[in-house]
């Protein structure tokens, strides 16, 4: 019995084809991120910039979240491995998100109170 046999509750890891698809998707999403940034920065083309400009933060956060999830699910094998690993990873991320928003809200409030 080898070391891998000790890791129960696991499905087989994806194959090369899935890994290549994920790599290309990540590359495409990064290109979209930089493209959206350039459109918002330069204001050209004007029609697209009018849509992208006001939503640039939301667009970047969404693309970033998708990339994060793809790497965690397929490259870190959370989709196939035991749910215990997912819990150990996701729980701190939830706490981290709460810390982040709490700090932003606190400093936003202090900024209003003491401009």
């Amino acid at each position, binding site marked *: 019995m080898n070391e891998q046999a000790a*890791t129960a509750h696991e499905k087989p890891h994806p194959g090369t084809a899935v890994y290549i698809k994920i790599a290309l998707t990540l590359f495409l999403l990064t290109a979209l991120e930089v493209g959206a940034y350039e459109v918002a920065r330069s204001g050209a083309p004007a029609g697209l910039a009018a849509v992208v400009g006001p939503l640039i933060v939301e667009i970047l*956060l969404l693309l970033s979240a998708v990339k994060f999830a793809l790497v965690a699910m397929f490259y870190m094998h959370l989709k196939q491995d035991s749910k215990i690993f997912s819990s150990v990873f996701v729980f701190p991320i939830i706490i981290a998100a709460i*810390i982040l928003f709490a*700090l932003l809200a606190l400093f936003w409030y202090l900024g209003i109170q003491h401009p």
Partner: protein
Amino acid sequence: MSHDSAHAIPIETTTGLDSRKLAIWAFIGSECLFFASLISTYLVYKGKSLVGPFPHEAWTSPTGQEFEPILQIPLVTTGTALLLFSSFFVVMALAGAQRGDRRALLGWLGATIFCGVFFVGMQVYEFYHFVHEGLGYTTNLFGSTFYTLTGFHGTHVTIGLIWLLTIWILGLRGKLPPDKSLNLEIAALYWHFVDVVWIVIFPVVYLMR
């Protein structure tokens, strides 16, 4: 009994999971909190610098000299793409290790290490360039939070590189058979983690104005 054969004896755990893999996930979870605090600090002080250089705005020094925005998006985008591809390379190396394909293991892992070295080199060049542009650690709030956040990330990448290089040498010496591939899987999890952290840092620092 040799050390190697003793190492391969399976250990029963209450969860049925390998304790080392659970430990690296717990460590990664704690690292999420660490980087969340650094990213929070960067965001809290974003746009609060009183003097230049600024990340996204041109500025004029007290001597009247004009400067462009300091961030270099094309260079960092290249580094980001290579770091993303390195995650692909390391899963291919792991697949090679698990099926006992030593050539694939060494080739893909070598490509991963190359991408990591490029990324760290990019960051060293960026820091060097910023210092020459007048952005020191205590110049303004952007400098302090930028160097702390990206510097800690770069340190993590460097540690990951040393870890992967060690495993590459083990593979070269034939000491990473399929039943020891978990050693690479754990290192790969850490490497993917530094990748996902950069997936967050890149838009937050470089693309959000």
